[in-house]
Structure formats: structure tokens, C-alpha cells
């Protein structure tokens, strides 16, 4: 499952780094978090009110007024840092959750499926609104049409600097390659 045998606890002085892996349902978020994580992937429930506000006071919260969504969670300890991977759905109705979830994130890996590219527009909108750096990883499924990169860039309306990579979310090395492309991009964009 995980790519690394380590399954202990993070060190108290490891710097926590949050990376969000986002995309529409079925695009491979859970798979990718699992491929990268050193622990079996977990999921944590987020509670929102029906109006989409985050719940931060438990009194007055009843099941009628709330909706929940599960976020994939994984961990990858590297020397000196611990990466926390959050696999998040990208519907715009979760905008407030998004704003809170991505606070302090290093960047976002947006997953896209060439069979339904437009499904990733919502998440790109959320990421851009949040002002986050991102890279797009196109997940190859067996029946995916093989669009050339420049066509995909045009369809996704990507900035020329934004990385567009292909990934097999099931393969730890491929998933790590996509993360590396994201982090290299973030570094290049530093002032």
C-alpha cells in the first residue's frame, strides 16, 4: 500500500507540510493518497452546515442541519519534514471548507481525467480563488483519449508556467514524480 515501510510517529520537531490533492469524484484522489502515504490511508470527516458554513461550535448542531464529507488523509515522513496529504473533493459548494482546509498549504495537485476534463474546472476555480500554486496531473485510465499536452493546456486554460504531468495514481513512483513537479514549480515561482 504505502511506498515506505515507515509507520511510526512524526518527530516533534519535523516541520509539517500540507499538500492538497484535489479533483472530482472518481479521479484517483484516494488511490494517490494511498500510493504516497506511509500509513494506510485514512479518512477524516468534515461537517458543514447546510448553508455550507464550517461547524465550529457543537451546540445547536443536529443531523438535520449538517452535511458531511470525507477527506482522504495520508502521511509521508521525510528527513526534517512530514508531508500531510489531504485528498479533497472539488465541488464549489464546499468553498468555505476549501478555504479552511487549504490554509497554510504548500500547494495543490489537481487531478484531471481526460474522459471528463470539465469536471476539474470547479476545483481549479477553487484553487485559483484561494491564490494557491498548483500543478495538474492527468490520470491515465485504460480508455482515456490520448490528447496531446498542448490541447489539454488549451482546454484547461493553463498558464504556461503551470506544470501539466501524466500520472498513474496507483504507482508510488509516478505519484511522487507528480508531487516533485508541483514542488519544483512552487520553488520556481518564489520571488
Amino acid at each position, binding site marked *: 500500500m504505502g511506498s515506505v515501510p515507515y509507520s511510526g*510517529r512524526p518527530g516533534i520537531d519535523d*516541520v509539517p507540510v500540507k499538500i492538497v490533492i484535489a479533483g472530482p469524484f472518481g479521479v484517483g484522489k484516494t488511490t494517490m493518497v494511498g500510493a504516497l502515504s506511509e500509513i494506510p490511508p485514512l479518512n*477524516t470527516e468534515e461537517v458543514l452546515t447546510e448553508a455550507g458554513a464550517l461547524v465550529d461550535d457543537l451546540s445547536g448542531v443536529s443531523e438535520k442541519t449538517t452535511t458531511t464529507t470525507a477527506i482522504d488523509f495520508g502521511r509521508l515522513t*521525510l528527513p526534517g519534514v512530514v508531508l500531510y496529504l489531504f485528498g479533497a473533493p472539488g465541488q464549489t459548494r464546499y468553498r468555505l471548507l476549501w478555504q479552511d482546509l487549504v490554509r497554510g498549504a*504548500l500547494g495543490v495537485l489537481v487531478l484531471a481525467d481526460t474522459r471528463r476534463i470539465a469536471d476539474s474546472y470547479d476545483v481549479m476555480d477553487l484553487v485559483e480563488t484561494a491564490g494557491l500554486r498548483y500543478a495538474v496531473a492527468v490520470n491515465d485510465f485504460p480508455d482515456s483519449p490520448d490528447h496531446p499536452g498542448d490541447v489539454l493546456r488549451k482546454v484547461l486554460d493553463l498558464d504556461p508556467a503551470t506544470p501539466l504531468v501524466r500520472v498513474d495514481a496507483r504507482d508510488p513512483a509516478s505519484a511522487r514524480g507528480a508531487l516533485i513537479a508541483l514542488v519544483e514549480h512552487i520553488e520556481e515561482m518564489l520571488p
Partner: protein
Amino acid sequence: MTPARRPRRVVPHFMAAAGLAADHVGVQRTTLVHVAAEVVADGLDPPASHLVNLLERGPLAAYECAAHLHLPYCVVRLLVADLVAAGTLLTRDPPAAEMPRRELLELVLSGLRAL
């Protein structure tokens, strides 16, 4: 790969009744949570006792605690804050801001490339 998900309560009634409030709660999703020295789970009620047991092997991020406890993050965040106020738990806030951005990115890159 996806584990079967069992149905969960939204916010347990006993926790809603406890009226934990969110004012000035510093706990974030990646806040590292650990047990204060000499604290034992005996005498604590669940889910606090579960949390202390979980953390006996070492610190975990608040978000990871929530997954293990099968409780929503908003609940665990307040539970942690409550137990910190009681002296049972300690937290380590994300120190990322202390490190220059480029240094942090280099650390992440070299770590990923070495795997």
C-alpha cells in the same frame, strides 16, 4: 484500496451537550498533539481516554487523531483544545513559518527524490 466505511454519527449527542465552544481554539488540522508527561487514560471518559491511548505511542496530527477516533474533525479539534486546557494534552503548532520558504521546499524535494 478504499477501506469499507462504516456509518458514523455526525456530532455525538454527548459532545454537543458538553457545549465545547470554538473561541480562540488554536488547534489546526496539522497541529501535532501529544500527551503531557505522567498523564494516564485511566479516569478519563471516552473519547478523551481513546485519544490518550492513541497518543501513548507518540504524537499525531489532530486530523489523524480524528480519523482514528472516527469522529469529525470539528469535534476532535474542540476535544483537543479542551484537553490542552485541562493539562492532559500538549500541542506543537505548525512551525513552518519559522523556516524560509526556499529551505522548506528544498527539504521536501530532496526527501521526495531520495525515496
